[in-house]
């Protein structure tokens, strides 16, 4: 019997809007 594959780990992702906010705040922080 073939071994059962290990379940994959769910990578949490921010939403597109959250990503937008993150990049905007990063841009604001950088001089």
């Amino acid at each position, binding site marked *: 019997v073939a071994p059962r*594959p*290990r*379940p*994959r*780990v*769910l*990578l*949490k*992702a*921010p*939403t*597109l809007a959250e*990503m*937008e906010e993150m*990049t905007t705040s990063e841009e604001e922080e950088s001089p």
Partner: protein
Amino acid sequence: RQVTVQRKEKDFQGMLEYHKEDEALLIRNLVTELKPQTLAGTVPCLPAYILYMCIRHADYVNDDLKVHSLLTSTINGIKKVLKKHNDDFEMTTFWLSNTCRLLHCLKQYSGDEGFMTRNTAKQNEHCLKNFDLTEYRQVLSDLSIQIYQQLIKIAEGVLQPMIVSAMLENESIQGLCGVKPTGYRKRSSSMADGENSYCLEAIIRQMNCFHTVMCDQGLDPEITLQVFKQLFYMITAVTLNNLLLRKDVCSWSTGMQLRYNISQLEEWLRGKNLHQSGAVQTMEPLIQAAQLLQLKKKTPEDAEAICSLCTSLSTQQIVKILNLYTPLNEFEERVTVSFIRKIQAQLQERNDPQQLLLDYKHMFPVLFPFNPSSLTMDSIHIPACLNLEFLNEV
């Protein structure tokens, strides 16, 4: 030496490794600074496949931070390039195509059996081993919708100035200008006879141009169909709205010209195999308006015929066109008030919307059906012009 090279090719498992510090260079060369023309003649959606091969290696070495970082940088890079080229149809098509392809890859190689039914055994070997990227698939799907909306906005911006003159004002049927209603100055939405006057050929040329770009960039055919359905709806809405507001175009001869123009557009759709897109159905109110202009408008039987024909026009729109209808010459009579009342009475039971004009900015919801690729990752060659020598084939 030759043996070594052959062995290396044979061992390539379709993964690409890079050092974390090269991520910014990867995104710059593959996303933000890339010109679609650079990849002419290569596999369509090559950036998407390369990105998947990089993600796969990060997954293979179980480096969740690297996967997170690469996907975030990719998505931000795509957004940046789209913002910079927000009026470039080719660039926007290129990234819509690649974003959808990356999304398809993340499904096709997710390990989810529902997405693996068309995979070869070799392709199944290329599935992700450690991570479930379902949430990133949602982000890519949302991004695809944004890019699609940008694409439609660009195409509409190009077409919109052509519509009124090409569909309603230009007279390509010979001899028709002699039967125009008299007493009206030639009016154009865009300065009479000026350089902004277009014929239908100009619209068709532009559609050909859009179609060629979408095919060349390997955009999923289902998306191309939806783009044209949306554009044909906009052409219909702008044309019909003008017809409903302009007395000088509510005539038998404009009806004739309009029907001819619509048939040319239908023929173009058939020629490009786009007739199943639903585009023709979106033109139905305009087809009926053209027929209404040409029908007789006198007897009770004429009223009956109009009511049974004009099912895609509202009562308000039918009545408005009849009110605006302008006889060609002194031998043709105006539509009588009693005829219009008869039509109104017959259509009373219809539950028509109250608004007269169509919302030309209305967008149909877009769908991105799963479209797995038959390509296997280990067959993909990275051209030197991409300047990605720092990627190691694994």
